[in-house]
């Protein structure tokens, strides 16, 4: 489903070149749960942004569902992000002036669903994260863990084939983090691939595949006992 070949990324700012990712190969199949670990500044977010079409790679090949993303127009990429990819960020990234219902609604608006379909999906997603009763509340009225659940609801409302999570529990205490982890595992169990960046080795260890990035170099090892 996701195939990267000799892919690399360099940032050019003020004539200074930062090689954020050195060339690497990676293939991820539908339904996999992959953890990405590595020290700060090693290139994890950069990797996730490239995977999520938020950033362009510099060299090599990146294929999604067998299609070369370098050929995608902005419209096509946007549609892809909208339909196939769900994002979960460390800082939740909810829009404060929209209530929870409207926050979850956001990706569906760009999908041109009718209002019934949107309503059905929003309520389903909110129920899945256990916050359907608070749909009219605003983000600031929730705890961090609850906010992250809303962000996850927003990511799954469009039934994507992959969720890209960048340190989804980074801002949460361990109890709340656990809740988020089990939610992600449930989502993965239903068939959605998950690629999750984390600092927490224990968390990372719950995935069958672990990708480690060090100074932009990717390496991979497979877990024996893992959830998926």
């Amino acid at each position, binding site marked *: 489903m996701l195939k990267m070949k000799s892919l690399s990324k360099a940032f050019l700012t003020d004539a200074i070149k930062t090689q954020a990712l050195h060339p690497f190969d990676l293939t991820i199949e539908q339904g996999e749960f992959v953890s990405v670990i590595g020290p700060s500044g090693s290139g994890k977010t950069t990797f996730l942004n490239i995977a999520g079409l938020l950033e362009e790679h510099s060299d090599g090949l990146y294929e999604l569902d067998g299609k070369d993303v370098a050929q995608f127009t902005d419209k096509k990429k946007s549609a892809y992000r909208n339909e196939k990819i769900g994002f979960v960020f460390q800082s939740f990234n909810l829009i404060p002036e929209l209530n929870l219902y409207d926050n979850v609604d*956001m990706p569906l608006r760009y999908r041109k669903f009718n209002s019934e379909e949107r309503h059905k999906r929003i309520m389903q997603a909110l129920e899945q994260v256990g916050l359907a009763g608070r749909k009219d509340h605003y983000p600031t009225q929730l705890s961090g863990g609850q906010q992250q659940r809303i962000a996850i609801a927003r990511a799954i409302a469009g039934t994507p084939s992959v969720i890209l999570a960048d340190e989804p529990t980074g801002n949460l205490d361990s109890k709340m983090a656990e809740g988020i982890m089990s939610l992600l595992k449930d989502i993965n169990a239903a068939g959605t691939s998950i690629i999750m960046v984390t600092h927490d080795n224990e968390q990372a260890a719950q995935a069958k595949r672990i990708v480690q990035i060090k100074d932009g170099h990717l390496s991979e090892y497979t877990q024996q006992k893992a959830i998926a």
Partner: protein
Amino acid sequence: MYFYYFKLALLSLRKTPLLTLLMVAMIAIGIGATMTTYTISYMMSKDPIPNKSANLYQVQLDSLNYEFADNDILPNTIAYQDVQALLKSDIPKNHVALGAIQTEIGPIDNPSIERQTLEVRTATSDFFAMFEVPFLHGGGWSEQDGKDAAQVAVLSKETNGWLFNGENSVGRTFYFGKDTYRVIGVLDDWNPLPKYYELSYAAFKKPNGVFIPFNTQIKNEFLTLKLISNYCWKEPDDQSFAALLTSECMWIIFWVELSNAQDRDQYQAFIDNHAKEQQALGRFPRRIFNKLLPLKEYLTDEEIVSDDSKMAVWLAALFLLVCLLNCMSLMIAKFDAKAGEIGLRRAVGASQNDIIKQFAIELSVIGLAGGLLGLLFAKLGLMAAANTYHYLHSGLMQMNSQLLMSTVMLAVVSSLLFGLYPITKASRMQPSSQLKSL
């Protein structure tokens, strides 16, 4: 989807009320100033009688014995002797000789109403048909009334208002100087702008209040020199009115309506012929050079449509530009502050076009608000102008529906135009870098 964007726009504007207010005010002030000056200039320069202006000509005759001004510039008025001859022609659809006098008028049977001194337009009978003057009651005088120098008058709606309380006064009489005149018609609102049939100095003054037959002026020997342009290049024989009529003094405005080019050529030949006949009798000493000056040329030649008003519009437009540039910097700041939201929307599937649409609608809402407020400012500006220039025609200070529409349109279009750069800048940013700022 546009409704969704509209909702987002309102949310976003409410989120930063001060910034919103500043942007709206900025646009409103610029638009207000531009539209105030533009309205005055537009009203000054618009065609006062569009369906006829191509057929109306001012007759100018070179009966002088020296060069009047530049070789082909002639006085706007002609001599009484010539008027009499020209009125005999049946080539024009309409022709009219115009004079002006000042007199005191007042009611006969109502001492509580004070007499007023008014400027009176004297005209031959075609006047009302030629200039499409609308009547509320009655009508103009007949050719026969004119010949008889009948003591009849047509009142403007305003004059009829104070003199007869706005009632249908046709058939009633009033004091016209020492005489009594009979009302035969009352005009509806009639405020041609500019007052094109006038001499240029009066083109933007208030409409006339009373109209009487030209011949009535002649027979009664009425003359108010300050209201006419009396060009006496050759002294009359004596100071009498009779001497004025037979003199070379040029003081009567003469307009003709010629339906087509053929009529115009024929009429040109007619006036040239008249000049030749007069030349044979010792008049028109210098040359046979007579002009049928089209109304539109008259308006521009006489600078009735002045460049000053256009200058003011340009200055105001520059001011608008400054306002819009300021507004643009606020827009850039606004969209920079929204980088996080933009990045997020891009991440969940908004294309660059979706972002552009969303913010274009937000700016349209700002532009619309600025336009409506600007309209209010323009109205205030025009009211102030009407106060300062109270001797000018109040119609100059009024916006028609077309101008109202264009004001709001201008505000929306210009805010979009100046928002183009901030919007595209915002939509082009890498979503990944924007996301970091939410």
